[in-house]
């Protein structure tokens, strides 16, 4: 039967509830009744809202306001130039009192830039210009732009800018609305759907027009009968044969994009690919409602529903919360903490992360605040027994035990080859592992290691190119200088011949310098005789200027200096001929110097011409460099800024 069903067109396929399934997954105790016993209410307007400048995946906004500015509700207060971005709007009216770093809700617990808004209690809206029913006549690009300007991001967890997702790279035939809400405890999508089913259906119409897609499937788990009824009513009141409602069995993590697409359409998003690759765009149902509010009311994304739940809270409930509201105020609105509390978690029990304290704001991505009754005891981890339980539940069809092995041994390439980056961090493997191995943590760690390594490689490549171009430039300059000096030397030789009779002392100085240089040069050249000139790769110093040129340069410099000394006042600074490290060789010397400073200081009294020679051994190099520095220190005292 199944076989025939699969071959029918999409339209008839989706008429049946789930014709497909995904691998693995878990049926979990859902704890959802907890937060559904109290009605949806609006959280009170807090005296201060703290709005982190980073609200969406992959981008920080720049403030458009200054401390002291008064703002109106819905006024844009931060934006980024990044096309993949979403601006931030003032959630209420009031005065900007701070723009500084504060701790934000993030697994790192680190501070980041935030705008703090002291509310004035009036909640006065800025002028709004809703698109209204005109949306059906507007070009897709205008709608997309409006969605970007409205600061809409995905409310299903990842907070990816929605306008970008609605600019697909492939033709889309199916829009999937994710009303699954598969994580235990969380009920905000369920409650939202019960209250705003009509608005959601209108929101779907907006999205279908924008995408030019012929079909939409709303996927919802069978543990939300009230929400299902609401949607059925809404569809009956306003029939739309493009939209199908598909009820799926409750099984975590059917709300994860790739698994949901498989579950509803049978299509498999390729490894590393996007839903658009298989003609699908998937949006969370809360995101659809936010788009409706933006288009029909002109409301940017400044609030969301948040589930405040867990056995550690007195009256769990769903609240409509302004972005930036501190968590402690929401807990108070729900009757405060129970006697015994364990951990404070943002998100659900499977995917969420712990928070250090409750003085943190709600951000666009916060769907749930969970207070557990007790801190879980740390169960002693024991070695993997290769039971395969993790593999059986892995919805991404990975081999978690194998990935653990590669993560532990740092075999990044193998981990990548075994599709580590397909892991959705759902935690199923963790949950079932009898050895209590924190598997997901290993994968997160390894993923960030690999990413950092790749970033470092990219940075190194840039540094290499910049180094090469600088070296080339320097070599060209050195060559030029050398040519100039050679010319000068010729002239000088001529001159000295002419002055032969009266230049006794000068001549002596020059001759002495030349003799020293020659000696040194001979010493350097001697071991090189055995090395054929045609094998430059065997010489480690080959990237430095060739020895002859270096020696030549040194000779020239010595000569010039000798001449100067003879001609000018003896007070002339000896470092004039030994400027700051310029060539690659000198740079190495400068570095070597740091290590061998002490050693070098002793030899700092050697002949002044030595430092002009291309240093050969590490010791020599270090000595030369240290000396340069010593001299410079002395001289800069006399010389002052040049």
């Amino acid at each position, binding site marked *: 039967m199944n076989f025939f069903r699969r071959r029918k067109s999409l339209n008839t396929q989706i008429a049946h509830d789930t014709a497909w399934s995904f691998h693995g997954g878990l049926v979990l105790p859902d704890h959802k009744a907890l937060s559904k016993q109290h009605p949806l209410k609006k959280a009170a307007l807090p005296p201060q809202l703290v709005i982190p400048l980073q609200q969406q995946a992959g981008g920080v906004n720049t403030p458009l306001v200054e401390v002291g500015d008064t703002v109106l509700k819905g006024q844009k207060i931060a934006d980024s130039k990044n096309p993949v971005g979403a601006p931030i709007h003032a959630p209420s009216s009031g005065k900007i009192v701070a723009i500084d770093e504060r701790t934000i809700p993030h697994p790192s617990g680190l501070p980041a830039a935030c705008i703090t808004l002291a509310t004035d209690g009036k909640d006065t809206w800025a002028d709004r210009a809703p698109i209204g029913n005109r949306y059906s006549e507007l070009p897709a690009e205008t709608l997309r732009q409006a969605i970007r300007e409205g600061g809409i991001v995905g409310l299903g967890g990842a907070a990816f800018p929605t306008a970008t997702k609605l600019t697909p790279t492939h033709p889309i035939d199916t829009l999937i609305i994710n009303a699954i809400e598969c994580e235990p405890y969380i009920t905000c999508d369920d409650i939202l759907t019960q209250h705003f089913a009509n608005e959601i259906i209108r929101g779907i119409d907006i999205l279908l027009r924008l995408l030019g897609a012929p079909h939409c499937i709303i996927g919802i788990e069978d543990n939300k009968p009230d929400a299902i009824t609401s949607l059925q009513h809404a569809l009956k009141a306003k029939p739309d044969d493009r939209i199908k409602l598909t009820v799926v069995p409750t099984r975590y993590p059917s709300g994860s994009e790739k698994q949901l697409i498989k579950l509803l359409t049978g299509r498999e998003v390729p490894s590393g690919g996007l839903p658009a690759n298989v003609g699908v765009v998937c949006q969370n149902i809360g995101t659809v409602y936010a788009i409706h509010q933006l288009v029909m009311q002109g409301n940017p994304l400044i609030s969301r529903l948040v589930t405040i739940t867990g056995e550690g809270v007195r009256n769990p409930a769903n609240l409509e919360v302004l972005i930036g509201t501190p968590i402690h105020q929401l807990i108070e609105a729900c009757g405060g903490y129970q006697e015994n509390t364990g951990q404070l978690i943002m998100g659900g029990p499977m995917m969420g992360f712990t928070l250090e304290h409750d003085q943190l704001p709600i951000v666009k991505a916060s769907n749930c605040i969970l207070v557990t009754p007790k801190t879980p005891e740390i169960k002693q981890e024991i070695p993997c027994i290769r039971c395969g339980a993790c593999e059986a539940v892995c919805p991404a069809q990975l081999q978690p035990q194998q990935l653990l092995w590669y993560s532990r041994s740092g075999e990044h390439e193998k981990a990548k080859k075994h599709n580590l980056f397909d892991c959705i961090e759902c935690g199923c493997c963790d949950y079932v592992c009898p050895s209590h191995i924190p598997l997901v943590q290993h994968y997160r760690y390894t993923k960030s290691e690999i990413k950092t390594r790749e970033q470092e490689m990219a940075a190194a490549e840039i540094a290499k190119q*910049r*180094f090469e171009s600088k070296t080339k430039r320097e070599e060209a300059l050195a060559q030029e200088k050398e040519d100039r000096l050679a010319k000068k030397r010729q002239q000088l030789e001529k001159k000295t011949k002419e002055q032969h009779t009266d230049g006794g002392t000068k001549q002596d100085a020059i001759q002495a310098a030349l003799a020293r240089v020659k000696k040194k040069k001979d010493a350097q050249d001697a071991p090189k005789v055995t090395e054929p000139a045609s094998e430059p*790769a065997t010489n*480690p110093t080959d*990237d430095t200027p060739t020895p002859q040129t270096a020696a030549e340069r040194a000779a020239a410099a010595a000569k010039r200096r000798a001449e100067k000394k003879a001609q000018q006042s003896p007070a002339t600074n000896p470092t004039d001929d030994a400027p700051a*490290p310029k060539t690659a060789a000198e740079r190495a010397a*400068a570095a070597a110097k*740091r290590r061998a400073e002490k050693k070098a200081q002793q030899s700092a009294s050697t002949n002044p011409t030595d430092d002009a020679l291309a240093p050969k051994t590490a010791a020599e190099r270090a000595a030369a460099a240290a000396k340069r520095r010593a001299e410079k220190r002395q001289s800069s005292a006399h010389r002052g*800024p040049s």
Partner: protein
Amino acid sequence: MVIAVAILCALALAFGLLLGYAAIRFKVEGNPIADQIDNILPQTQCGQCGYPGCRPYAEAIANGEAEINQCPPGGEAGIQALAALLDREVIPLNAENGEVKPKAVAVIDESTCIGCTLCIQACPVDAILGAAKQMHTVIADECTGCELCLPPCPVDCITMEPVKQTVMTWKWPKPDHSTQAKSKTHLN
């Protein structure tokens, strides 16, 4: 007989020419092993290895003139990668070359800078911007943290600032017992 010898000679000549041509035509530019080593080195260009840059050090390793443990910025991971590439044993970093330090970037105190350009000349990757007698700035993204600009500065206005960890650069920690309570699923 003569013909056979002649043919063989002709063939030998022909193949000889062909090989000679191929040797010129398909000559491998540069030194592939050195290239591979160079790709592993961090390109900080700091000279701590005792060579004037990463490339010369790479060539020295390729020629068996240098050990694989002379690059402090590459750290232990770098030594491991080199050992794997060259099929050698992993050895600890040579302390004489320096120690592993957290990544830092140079920062110029712009009120003290006299615009002498000495640091610009010292920077191996052109990461310092400025003109004579105008204050200079470091392009933080391009700075490799090599510290070569520190000694030439006559007014000591350059300091190395450790790169601050932000929410954007933060990495998940290596799993251990202290992190376990936070990471395991919270469903009991």
